[in-house]
């Protein structure tokens, strides 16, 4: 990269929370804007997509419409590096709860004129459609990860975002285990690190918003949840939230159908 890299921020089906994280870096945002040319970021600036090439494309959101399925290919073709921001873009997001349900039934539940609605039957991650260079987890992403990612990208090195379990972060934070001490259901043992074990710090079980860690032993966790009194439906619901379409969580939910 010569000169300031050109950054674009793209939105697919999402809540805007992950891209908002960028504006929530109050102490860093002006410095970042100095180091990177924010060429396209419609939530923050009126500047239009000039149809040109971008060094870095941040993508938030999942693919849920025929239009989005086309748009992502064009973005890939015009970007050197494609980075997904958050659970929606990385695994499909909460809207992937519609995968497997009847879309018609869903449209009928929300809209009076289903014929006005153009949607796919599934919400899918960006990587189902194009090659993705790096994925940030979380619903929403962690600001620390985001800043590390930007710093690493500017320095031309790989970002350091450990793939171990939330459970390890929890031990490092010195929290009392909510599952052992209080029998609360917790996805910490199978969830990707990144939040700093926030929920256990607030006396609640992890609900998995960073998605599965590498090689999670979900079956062992489910057995433990059952011992603590969770029924099959509760276990299924636990895996079926913001990363419901991440393979490890999807399969474990299915095993409790």
């Amino acid at each position, binding site marked *: 990269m010569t000169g300031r890299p050109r950054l674009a921020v793209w939105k697919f*089906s999402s809540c805007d929370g992950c891209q*908002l994280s960028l504006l929530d870096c109050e102490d860093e945002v002006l410095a970042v804007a100095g180091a990177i040319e924010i060429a396209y970021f419609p939530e923050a600036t*009126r500047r239009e997509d000039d149809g040109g090439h971008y060094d870095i494309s941040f993508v938030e959101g999942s693919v849920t419409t025929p239009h989005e399925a086309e748009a992502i290919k064009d973005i890939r073709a015009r970007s050197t590096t494609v980075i997904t921001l958050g659970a929606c873009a990385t695994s499909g997001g909460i809207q992937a*709860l*519609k995968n497997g349900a009847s879309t018609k039934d869903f449209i009928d539940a929300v809209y009076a004129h289903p014929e006005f609605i153009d949607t796919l039957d599934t919400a899918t991650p960006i990587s189902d459609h194009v090659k993705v260079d790096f994925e940030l987890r979380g619903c929403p992403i962690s600001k620390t990860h985001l800043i590390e990612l930007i710093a690493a990208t500017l320095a031309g090195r790989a970002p350091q975002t450990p793939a171990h379990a939330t459970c390890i972060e929890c031990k490092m934070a010195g929290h009392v285990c909510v599952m052992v001490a209080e029998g609360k259901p917790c996805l910490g043992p199978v969830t990707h690190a990144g939040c700093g074990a926030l929920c256990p710090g*607030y006396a609640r079980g992890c609900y998995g918003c960073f998605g599965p860690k590498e090689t999670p032993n979900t079956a062992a966790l489910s057995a433990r949840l059952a011992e603590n009194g969770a029924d099959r439906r509760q276990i299924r619901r636990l895996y079926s939230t913001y990363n419901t379409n991440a393979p490890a969580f999807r399969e474990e939910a299915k095993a409790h159908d």
Partner: protein
Amino acid sequence: MTDTTIKVDMLARVEGEGAFKVVVREGKIVGTEFRIFEPPRFFEAFLRGRDHSEAPDITARICGICPVAYQMSSVQAMEMALGVEVSQPIKNLRRLLYCGEWIESHILHAAMLHAPDFLGYASAIDMANDGHADAVKLALDYKKIGNSIVTLVGGREIHPINVKVGGWWKAPKKRDMMKLREDLLRALDMADAFVDFTAALPFPDKERDYTMVCIEEPNGRYPMYEGTRLISNRGMDIPATAFNDHFDEHHVKQSNALQGRMKAGGAYLTGPLPRYNLAYDKLSERAKAAAERSGLGREVKNPYRSIVVRAVESLFAVEEAIRLIEDYEEFDPAAMEITPRAGTGMGASEAPRGMLFHQYTLEEDGSIAKAQIVPPTAQNQPSIEEDLAELIADELDRPHDEIQWLCEQTIRNYDPCISCATHFLDLTIDRG
């Protein structure tokens, strides 16, 4: 140029995706369209069959800008359905969390998304690079204090994790709250300075006679958290539970949002202007003084001045947060006991951009049988279209890009949240 179309296919500096179009025939506006093309995400559908306890976290994901609003309306609806009355300390902490979101969201919108319209910049970053660095830095510092309230009380600024049906997972430590109080005391001067920054902006001299609607709280407080009644400037005064008897949602073509209307007649406005106009007396003395200094008056009908009202409301939220922290005592248990049962409940609270109504019907085991969510931008959509027709009508002789700019600025008066409303924006002026 008597026949033309002014159109924007992708409205910038709003939360989500939308477009608009103004159709001009023989020099007169004959149609305006404010379109939401943010893809539908079907929350009301997939909430069915989920547990009541999951609603605050799931509905938060409708909007990353105002997740607290979703959490506050949903927990209140669930508690009504379950027949649980939460304690005053639980309510006070919720109001404190809400103050954080008002500051964070109002300042983000006013400084980063809306102010550039008034000053002629593409973005706040361009503003900062062109002589307004102090104002932008002030806003960023100020916004951050809103974030730190949400982070302490809620666990994190986006999609807080501490809110629970029945109360909280854990009550924060008084000690940590008192540290936050120090930041808030520093924010008071920033808040006044920010009001003065907005008051000095150049305002189009335009007014409209809106029907304005907001919630009313039971304790005579400024409308925010606990909407037990809904009131209007036209004399409406109904229990919030009667929302569906008085308001309707319509599904219009080319929009992935449902539009809200009053059964008794047409478009209405929700948000900072209605709150200010209907609850001015409930503002703090310092907020009233700032309003007076800004020349707002007792009544605001100029929608472009909503940016000043947001700044005044943010000042109010800082003071309110200080008061709530000073009165705060740790409480344990952090939540009321919940026993699942069948029932129906409603929750109405004031998101920064307007009233947010939730209604749920629960099964015997506490699962959700039916969910209804009416976000503020969906309610404001008809009013936005009327604004485009009325406020732009005498500007049609101006160059296309100036009209387009004014249209965008007009829409941003609403701080529209398209992610929420998807159930938003792209300007077309069609002159034939």
